[in-house]
């Protein structure tokens, strides 16, 4: 059934449909609408779950880890500072191989307090062993959250579903809310593989000597390597049932493109329009949307960019001293790939500054007129003074 939904409520509706059993959270703008809606669903009985409003994000993730260790389906949501505060527990959740799903609303980090969109919060958690999926619109948020549970429970790794602050979390759009029966078919009840078994007590989280630790880490890496194939299967299954599919990347008009704009999050929607404009002017432009950031989709990116001469990566984030984070990852995906394009790296839209169609066109034409990329990322739209 189509409904006009706020981005945040695309998350809470998915949590309801996924029949999540334990939710724990601490409020932070712009995540609050997600957890308030879930709190309401639990109280009214629309969702048969336990909801805890705990005293911090650290406790939120810790209690969700506790619940997941008992074998139930869990959820939490946070943003910006809250995610940063969870950091220690993020490593724990993946190390313990728990299928936790979290919605993370991309928000800028302080100081210079700012509640608006910026991807540096989630990207700085890239080494924590969480699968990261970035969303473009409300429908994708709902669908990705459902998919995240299947994926997490199959692979036994936690999944972060990521949406832009305000541009997505607080924007209303028509969203198709699937029927419960259909969702149940796609997402059967959790069959936890690592679980506190009352019939067979064992110890979780004990000391591991050098002789065994490395194998445990290797297992996590192997699990991550299984994600792309498993994700493809589930994306296919999802498409059969619901008629929608997203892929780990979405390449648009890349086949005959000379220059491809590489984007993620809500900038993708703007880019679709910019692309149409550029094409109507006879420009051979293409677009590559990156949805899956961890594991990084090296193969699909190589495939999509074959024969392209230049790419312009638009990063709404910065790793200080290195530059745009998507650009770095794409460079390493293309390394040792002779026919790869030149990689241009741009930083734009930090702390909620708008990235308009014109911004993207400026980036396109800059890339077109340059012979060689600069070593560093080029910052777009800085105030001059």
């Amino acid at each position, binding site marked *: 059934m189509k409904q006009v939904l706020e981005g945040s409520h695309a998350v809470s509706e998915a949590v309801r449909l996924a029949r999540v059993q334990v939710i724990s959270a601490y*409020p*932070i*703008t712009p995540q609050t609408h997600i*957890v*308030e809606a879930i*709190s309401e669903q639990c109280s009214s009985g629309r969702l048969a779950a336990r909801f805890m*409003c705990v*005293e911090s994000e650290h406790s939120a993730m810790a209690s969700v880890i506790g619940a997941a260790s008992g074998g139930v389906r869990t959820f939490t949501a946070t943003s910006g500072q809250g995610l940063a505060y969870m950091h220690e527990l993020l490593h724990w959740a993946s190390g313990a191989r728990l299928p936790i799903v979290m919605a993370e609303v991309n928000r800028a980090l302080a100081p210079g307090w700012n509640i608006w969109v910026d991807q540096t919060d989630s990207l700085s958690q890239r080494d924590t062993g969480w699968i990261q999926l970035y969303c473009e619109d409300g429908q994708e948020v709902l669908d990705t959250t459902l998919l995240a549970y299947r994926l997490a429970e199959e692979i036994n790794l936690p999944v972060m579903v990521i949406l832009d602050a305000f541009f997505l979390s607080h924007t209303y759009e028509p969203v198709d809310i699937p029927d419960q029966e259909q969702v149940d078919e796609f997402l059967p009840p959790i069959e936890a593989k690592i679980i506190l078994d009352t019939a067979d007590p064992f110890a979780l989280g004990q000391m591991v000597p050098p002789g065994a630790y490395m194998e445990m880490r290797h297992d996590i890496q192997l699990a991550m390597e299984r994600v792309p194939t498993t994700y493809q299967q589930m994306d296919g299954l999802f498409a059969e049932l619901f008629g929608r599919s997203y892929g780990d990347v979405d390449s648009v008009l890349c086949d005959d493109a000379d220059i491809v704009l590489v984007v993620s999050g809500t900038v993708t929607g703007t880019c679709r329009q910019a692309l149409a404009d550029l094409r109507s002017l006879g420009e051979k432009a293409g677009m590559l949307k990156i949805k899956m950031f961890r594991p990084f989709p090296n193969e699909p990116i190589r495939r999509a960019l074959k024969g392209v001469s230049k790419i312009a990566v638009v990063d709404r984030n910065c790793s200080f001293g290195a530059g745009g984070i998507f650009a770095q990852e794409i460079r390493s995906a293309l390394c040792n790939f002779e026919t790869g394009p030149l990689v241009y790296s741009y930083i734009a839209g930090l702390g909620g500054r708008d990235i308009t169609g014109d911004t993207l066109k400026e980036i396109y034409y800059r890339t077109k007129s340059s012979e060689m990329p600069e070593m560093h990322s080029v910052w777009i739209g800085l105030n001059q003074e």
Partner: protein
Amino acid sequence: MAIKDYLRERFFPHMWCPGCGHGIVLNNMLRSIEQLGLSKNEIVMVSGIGCSSRISGYVDFHTLHTIHGRALAFATGVKLGLPELNVIVPMGDGDALAIGGNHFIHAARRNIDITAIVMNNRIYGMTGGQFSPLSGIGTMATTAPFRNIDHDFDVAELSKAAGATFVARTTTFHAKQITDIIKQAILHEGFSVVEILTQCPTYFGRKNREGSASNMMELYKKNTTPIGSQAKQENPELIERGILHEVEAPEYCNEYDKIIKAAMKGK
């Protein structure tokens, strides 16, 4: 110095809702500072995040606007580095006792000379009315649409038990008492906690049908009584106002100096 000279007017208009009690706290805190004759340069204000914490933007002292829940940890560093300054830390109830609860008890335990002001509106104002550890059983909040089942802390008892050497409580209805208590809290050598009940008509008031801001302040008048009053014996439900606890105990920075002296053996 006139009160206005303590304000950083370029940060105005302030962000508080009409009827919010936080402005009364700001006003009376400035009066106490003025009455003590402190200069702007002798004061460091450290705050975390929340509507209450915005105070640090509005006053023209040395100010640090820091991380949610961590104001006391930052303030401890400031005080250790510059022990001659007066360190004042305004906090919301969530800031002080939810995410910052750990720092709160440890600052009290050390008895470091900091004045902690807990602006208790019993709700997370800034994020839109979720319940806090001071909301209490039976209250309504956006995260407790049917009613809250979480017990609340008694800030005064908690502070005392944790080691604070000055503990007081008042309300925004009792504005003069705010001035009076904050003055004594600043003068007290050691960790001082001042709890001020301050109304949030936008969230707590609306969710809990407490009416307008003036209505909520009327409730503060009705539901509180000076410490040791006859009224309290007749009606134990009343909340006591005034200085609830004041003792002398070694202060952290002083003790630290003594250790340095002893270690240097007069060198």
